[in-house]
């Protein structure tokens, strides 16, 4: 038994992505139609060419009809998937695996989420109370516990960590400021970040990703068919998922300075893709910066920085858009908000633009590397799912 992956067997031939933000005038069906039509047109196909569909949404619909109805897909298999914040990436994984298996020639993945209709700050999905003993803490509070833990473990004071987190927010906002699809198209100063009202622990408003609506879509075919649709397909190098047991919450050895699920998913993905030195092999990475401390810790979990050094690397600009390894060059969740089902495919869309050199010139990264990584995590420190994908513009 092993994780073999599907390296170079499937390619993305078309993508679409709506602007992310407060789409008061669109419902989830509109977002789905917008992203899907862009993807069809990008691939030069119609819905009749696609053999099977997957729709990822966490809360904006149930069943494949969430996609079949707005697109009026008749007589085709359409399935809804959900896996916390990896939902959109799971839709693409399902579509790609279906094509790799030989079951279909062409498949499509759509991720969509409509969160702004809820009427609450943050992501609020009231669940049945059950026995009434479940934690009611916000995600911001759970992730805020990284700050004192990381500071203590690596001998920093908490103000130093907050300075690093402000640098992360500033970097991602600067990237989003020049991205027309971002929710927040505005650079922020470190001072603004540091003086924002605190929401949880030491995390302020600018340490937390916003809430947004959005959708993104991708169409995949067998790798050998890809050049029939586009000169510049993106080949799927790896998909890895690691689903935690939740035991980190009750394990006295867990120290809130790393996410084992993310490390496991990354290691699996690197093995599938043949990546041995991610920092020097990847052209870019889109990581799940739901909160600024999450990105800091992820730099270590994903192998971009040695344990205890991510804070230095962030300050040194290693992960800036013009740095050694650009991280979240599109602005990340920080600038895009986090429509749960759409975020994973939005990250893939950024890889699509950057590896094909189709980002607007002011934000196009310059590199001769051909691999990009996307990463999602969903849940909380100690109990999360994580998904890592690796994409490449060349075979081999």
């Amino acid at each position, binding site marked *: 038994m092993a994780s073999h992956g599907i390296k170079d067997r499937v390619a993305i031939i078309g993508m679409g992505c709506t602007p992310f933000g407060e789409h008061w005038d669109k419902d989830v069906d509109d977002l789905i139609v917008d992203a899907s039509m862009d993807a069809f047109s990008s691939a030069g196909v119609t819905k009749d060419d696609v053999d099977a569909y997957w729709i990822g949404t966490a809360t904006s619909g149930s069943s494949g009809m969430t996609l079949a109805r707005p697109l009026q897909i008749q007589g085709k298999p359409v399935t809804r998937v959900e896996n916390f914040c990896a939902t959109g990436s799971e839709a693409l994984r399902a579509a790609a695996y279906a094509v790799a298996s030989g079951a279909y020639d062409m498949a499509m993945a759509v991720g969509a989420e409509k969160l702004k209709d809820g009427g*609450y*700050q*943050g992501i*609020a999905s*009231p*669940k*049945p*109370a*059950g*026995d*009434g*003993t479940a*934690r*009611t*803490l*916000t995600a*911001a*509070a*759970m992730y*805020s*516990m990284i700050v*004192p*833990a990381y500071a*203590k473990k690596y001998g920093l004071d908490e103000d130093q960590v907050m300075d690093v987190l402000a640098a992360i927010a500033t970097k991602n906002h600067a990237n989003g400021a020049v991205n027309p699809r971002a929710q927040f198209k505005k650079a922020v100063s470190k001072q603004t970040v540091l003086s924002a009202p*605190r*929401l*949880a*622990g030491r995390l302020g408003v600018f340490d937390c990703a916003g809430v947004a609506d959005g959708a993104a879509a991708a169409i995949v075919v067998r790798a050998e068919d890809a050049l029939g649709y586009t000169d510049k397909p993106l080949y799927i190098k790896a998909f890895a998922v690691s689903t935690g*047991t939740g*035991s980190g*919450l*009750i*394990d*006295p050895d*867990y120290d*809130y300075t790393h996410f084992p699920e993310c490390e496991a998913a990354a290691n699996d993905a690197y093995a599938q893709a043949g990546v041995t030195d991610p920092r020097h092999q990847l052209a870019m990475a889109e990581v799940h910066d739901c909160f600024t401390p999450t990105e800091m810790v992820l730099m270590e979990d994903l192998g971009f920085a040695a344990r205890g050094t991510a804070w230095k690397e962030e300050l040194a600009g290693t992960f800036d858009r013009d740095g050694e390894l650009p991280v979240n060059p599109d602005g990340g969740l920080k600038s895009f908000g986090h429509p749960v089902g759409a975020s994973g495919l939005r990250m893939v869309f950024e890889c699509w633009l950057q590896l094909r050199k189709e980002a607007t010139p002011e934000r196009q990264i310059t590199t001769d590397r051909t691999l990009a990584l996307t990463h999602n995590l969903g849940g909380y420190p*100690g109990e999360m799912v994580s998904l890592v994908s690796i994409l490449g513009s060349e075979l081999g």
Partner: protein
Amino acid sequence: MRGILSAAGYVPFRRLRRSAVPELLGTGGGKGTRSVASHDEDTTTMGLEAARLALGSVPAAAPSALWFSTPAPAYADKTNATAIHAALRLPAEVAAFDLGGGLRSGPGALTAALSAAGSTLVVLADQRDGLPGGPDESFGGDAAACFLVGEDGPGAPVIAEMVGSASATDEFTDRWRSPGERRSKVWEERFGETRYLPLGRDAWSRALKAAAVEAGDVNRVVVTSMHGRAAKAVAAKLGVGEGAVVDDFSATVGQAGAAHPGLVLASVLEQARPGETIALVHLADGADVMVLRTTEAIGTWTSVRPVAEQVENGGDLPYGKFLSWRGMLNPEPPRRPEPLRVQSPPAWRAEDWKFAFVGSKDRSSGAIHLPPSRVSMQGGAVDDMEPISLAGTPGTIATFTIDRIAYSPSPPIVFAVVDFDGGGRYPVELTDVDADDLKIGDRVEMTFRRLYSADGIHDYFWKARPIRARRG
């Protein structure tokens, strides 16, 4: 010999400075403080805390019945004693009854237990409300008390026996409250005072006679009443020696209604030596007097957490918070969805976990699972766990945070990852805490609380609180 086998009082952590009332309202208040149940406490949770302390002194004891008496029950119709029963993990064959209603019911329950059979855990609790600026608000208090009553035995000997008692009953309207209301009303004070004085003297003289003691032989007297003037007047006429009338905590706790005689009596027992004569006088719709004598065994009985220590260990509560906790002020809640009602079948299935903080311990790896799990997180053993309760196990804060946006009846939520002594970790909300004073490494203990209420169903579960008092 039948008598009291153990006793304890519970005083909640928060104190309202009476002088804070006129600072806001321009009137009312007074000197000293009153105790205030936290927003997550009610008479059931306070009663449980008293019961845990009382049983903590006599771990070998096995009550055969639980009687819970309060004029401020968390539920009508549904028995409140069953939640205390569940939290104490008492066996199903132990009956649990609520003994209702009036201010006289507390000492009534204790007297009844002393003349009943079997080993009875008598739990008394009260929470006193009043309108802002009024005397009930300032001079009422919140507290609980618990007595284990039964036959003398090796594991739990009698520490005090009742040597005499008497009641004087009369029907008159001095203080009243409609069911469901939080505010009491009172008749003109002088009327009650003139009723209580003869009733108290009558009951007192008959109780002394029954006990065959003279007033001057009584070492300590507890006099309690929501009618403060009557209590003072009766105390002055008892004919006991100077200094025999004990401090009734009016200046620190306030009068905690039906629980108050129990609270003060428990405190007296904590200080008493063998062979003392102790009397309790409670004035409510008549007068009830009990005369107790301590035994040799009280010399070796020790309180887990003396009342006096709890009275000392209070923390200030701003008047605005007090008003919002009591429903007199409605501050803007966090803009988050309010929780839905607890579901009855899952709560029942999780009874030991939810009410008694019982997890499971893997027999092979020793890994502790909170909540209990069928499959081990270490080694993967299936259905090979034993129950383990961590309700009484202290722990240490591994890390903590403050959530300013989550829903809470009293935001913000202070939350910590707690490592229990001897193994086991649980991330849990803290209570009775001032977040500014909190540090990683602080010591905490578990406490049974009411998390919220929805559709009239109370969500009882455990939180952690800082350990402040010395442990015996």
